[in-house]
């Protein structure tokens, strides 16, 4: 995760522009979009199903069934406590999605209004906001999560909030740069001429026009949050047992590498699928929502 905590757009780095091929094929939904959406759909469906049904209770330990290789009864085998790995992977998707939703939610709710404000009020207020944003930028989400763990106790909630705060700068930057572009457009000039209130302009003109970029950023940050949560759980600072979490499953699988490899493969694959899904979705959406294309219209 480390890296990814971080990954591409954690800080609102200008996202890579769409490829020429992608532009050419823009009319159809890109292959990336389709694959990404399918992978995320898969994770989401698994999470929903696991709410009502898993093959076994993912938290019930059965000492007699410990460390069984994959079989018809246990498709992904069982772990050292005799718990069904498939069930745990299924239930683990809930935490993954929850952390992603909350973290991204916090970042959007705080970062986007700040970014829009900074973009519309370029002056002292705008400067101040962006300076504050730069300072926040110096506190990566993972660092916040570790320190918050000391202050508030480690756990899923602490992790979500810390990762959310850590992603605020990315959203503020994206929202601000989008707003700056929108503010230059004719219809905003017209709205201003017609004495529309700033709030109304933000709501009617700015927000709809930057929503595409925000959605792209959401998707990217979702992937980042998934990796970060896994990393925190790997360190023992994320989701607490017995709630299944992919990162902790990986951590627990360490002492069985070489003898029961499936214990690492299942959660590892699950993380990769979820992150890949969000990244592809982000890329695909970017091709569709590219602001340059929009302004060309």
């Amino acid at each position: 995760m480390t890296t990814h905590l971080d990954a591409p757009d954690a800080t609102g780095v200008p996202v890579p522009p769409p490829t020429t091929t992608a532009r050419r094929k823009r009319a159809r939904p890109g292959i990336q979009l389709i694959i990404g959406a399918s992978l995320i759909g898969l994770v989401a469906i698994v999470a929903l199903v696991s709410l009502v049904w898993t093959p076994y209770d993912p938290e019930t330990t059965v000492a007699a069934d410990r460390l069984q290789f994959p079989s018809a009864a246990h498709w992904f085998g069982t772990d050292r406590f005799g718990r069904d790995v498939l069930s745990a992977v299924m239930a683990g998707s809930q935490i993954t999605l929850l952390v992603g939703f909350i973290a991204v939610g916090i970042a959007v709710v705080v970062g986007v209004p700040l970014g829009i404000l900074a973009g519309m009020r370029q002056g002292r207020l705008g400067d101040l906001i962006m300076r504050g944003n730069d300072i926040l930028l110096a506190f990566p989400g993972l660092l916040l999560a570790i320190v918050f763990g000391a202050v508030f106790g480690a756990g899923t909630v602490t992790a979500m909030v810390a990762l959310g705060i850590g992603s605020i700068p990315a959203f503020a930057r994206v929202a601000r740069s989008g707003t700056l572009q929108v503010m230059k457009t004719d219809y905003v000039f017209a709205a201003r001429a017609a004495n529309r209130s700033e709030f109304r302009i933000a709501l009617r003109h700015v927000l709809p026009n930057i929503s595409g970029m925000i959605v792209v950023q959401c998707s990217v940050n979702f992937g980042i949050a998934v990796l970060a949560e896994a990393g925190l759980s790997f360190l023992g600072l994320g989701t607490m047992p017995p709630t299944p979490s992919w990162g902790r499953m990986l951590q627990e699988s360490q002492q069985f590498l070489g003898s029961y490899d499936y214990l690492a493969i299942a959660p590892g694959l699950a993380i990769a699928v979820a992150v890949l899904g969000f990244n592809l979705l982000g890329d695909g959406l970017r091709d569709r929502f590219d602001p340059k294309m929009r302004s060309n219209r």
Partner: protein
Amino acid sequence: MARRLLSSLGQFLATLLVATALIFVMLRVMPGDPAVVALGINATPEALAQWRAEYGTDQSLALQYLQWMGGLVRGDFGTSYVTSQDLSPLIVDRVQVTLILVGLSMLLALLVAVPLGMLAAIRHQHPSGVVLSGISQVGVAVPNFLVGVLLVAVFAVHLGWFPSGGWVAPADDPVEFARRLVLPVIALGSVQAAIITRYVRSAVLEIMREDFLRTARAKGLTKGAALVRHGLRNAGVPVVTIVGVQLAAMLIGSVVIERVFVIPGLGSLLVDSVGNRDLLAVQAIVAVLVLLVILINFLVDLAYTVLDPRLRKAA
């Protein structure tokens, strides 16, 4: 140019000041009186008072902050309440370890990502380019600790080619130092390589559509040669940006790799200090990490000026 530099520097210092103040305040919220943490719950009131006077925690927050900052400027992080050890040498030691690990991983990532990214861009319509692009996409999605755990399982435990972890100071034994770094650097660097490859690819693709490249190609240069002669510098801006972002993230992000490979870096020290509720140590480590991140952002800012002629002119 000079004005821009100065204003960057000013911003850098201001950011630093506010950030350290934030850290200081944030950690005062940490539950527990440091005197009680240090002396135990059975300590007498006199002992507690004496301790507080000795460590200065009975003074006002503002004064404590100033004293702490004064220490920071002199490179003195104070003495840990918990371990009674002098923090400065410990932290300096750990920072170096983390910088080496992160620096080498980034170097590896760039060595892999720049050529691969360019190749993927030049061949973006060929199957090989698509495959490269796909591999990098998957690489980004793999948690680096999984890479680390697998590398240990295969190359250290099973094959025995490399040590499973640990750290040897380069001065003690340069060969052993290098051997021990191979697996962690690959684990940390490979995922970075995947991320940067994607950025290099898009940056280069963007440039390939620019006029000057078309002209160069019209003059008879091959795609690759034209790119190397003219395009690299322009592709530099987004790449430097992402390298800066990733470096900043890796400083703390490497903690997981440090854990897997038992490397005594700054991130591991932070996690340990948090576990020990070692307030001063946590405060100092966070300050150092934040300082480094701000420093990186500052350097990236400077790099823009060097790389982008338009920015230079504007200044």
